[in-house]
C-alpha cells in the first residue's frame, strides 16, 4: 500500500482531482462501450422481431 490512510488515498498527494477525474472518465467510457451495444442489441432484436411478425401477418 502506497498510502497511509484512506484520506491520503483520496487526496493523491494533492493530485486527487486529476487522478480521480481521469478514472471517472475511464469508467464512463468503459461503461458506455459495454452498455450501449447491449441496449442496442435489445432494440435490434425487438425491431427484427416486429418485422418478422409483420411479415408473417401479411403472408
Amino acid at each position, binding site marked *: 500500500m502506497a498510502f497511509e490512510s484512506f484520506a491520503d488515498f483520496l487526496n493523491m498527494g494533492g493530485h486527487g482531482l486529476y487522478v480521480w477525474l481521469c478514472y471517472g472518465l475511464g469508467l464512463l467510457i468503459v461503461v458506455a462501450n459495454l452498455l450501449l451495444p447491449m441496449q442496442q442489441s435489445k432494440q435490434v432484436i425487438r425491431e427484427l422481431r416486429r*418485422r*418478422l411478425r409483420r*411479415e408473417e401477418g*401479411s*403472408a
Partner: protein
Amino acid sequence: MSTELLSARSLFCERDDRILFEGLDLTLNTGEILQIEGRNGSGKTTLLRILSGLSSHFEGELYWQGEVMGEVQEAYLADLVYIGHLPGVSGQLTAEENLRWHCALHPSLDIEKIDYAIGQVGLRGFEDLPAYQLSAGQKRRIALARLYMSEAKLWILDEPFTAIDKVGVAAKEALMLKHLSCGGSVILTTHQDMSDHMPVRTLSLGEPQEIGDE
C-alpha cells in the same frame, strides 16, 4: 455457327432490402440479341451494370467465352461497348473531342473513323458545337456513334433508343443486324418495340421480391 459468348450463373442481387433477382442464369451466343424485359425497378439497369462489370454488388459467376470473368477482364473490356443511362458525353466537349477521348480509352479504335461515325449518326454540321448546346437526342447520338467505330463483339445498351427519332431507330436496327452478321451480339433494354424482323430473344425479370416474402 453460334458459340457461347457471355454467360452468367446463379446471379443474386439485392438492393434496398429487395431481392432484384435470385438464381438468375443467362447465356448469350454469338449473333444474338437478348432483350431484358421487366417493369420499372425490376433491376434491368442493375443487371446490365453487373454484366458490364461496373457493379460488383452481386453474388454469382460471370463467364466470358467460357472463362471466368475475373481472369479475362481486360480482354472482355476490349470487346465490349456499354452505353448506359448516362450517355458518357462531356457537355463542354464537342462530339469529335468526346469521341477522340473514347479512342484513347480504347486503343484498338481507329481515330480516322470518327468522322464517318459522326456522319452516320447524322451529326454532320454539329461537329464544332459543345455537347451541352445539343439536344438530348443529339447527345445520345454521340454516345451511339461509338457503335459505328467499334469492332467489339458485345454491345450492352441500356435504353439505346431514348430520345431517338424513328429514322434513327431504323438506322440503329440496321446497324445491329450488321453487327450480328459479323458474329457480334447485343444485350439491351428498351421500352420501344423493336421491328419484327429483328432476331430478338427476351429475358423477363420478375417482380422484385420484398425481402421476407417467401
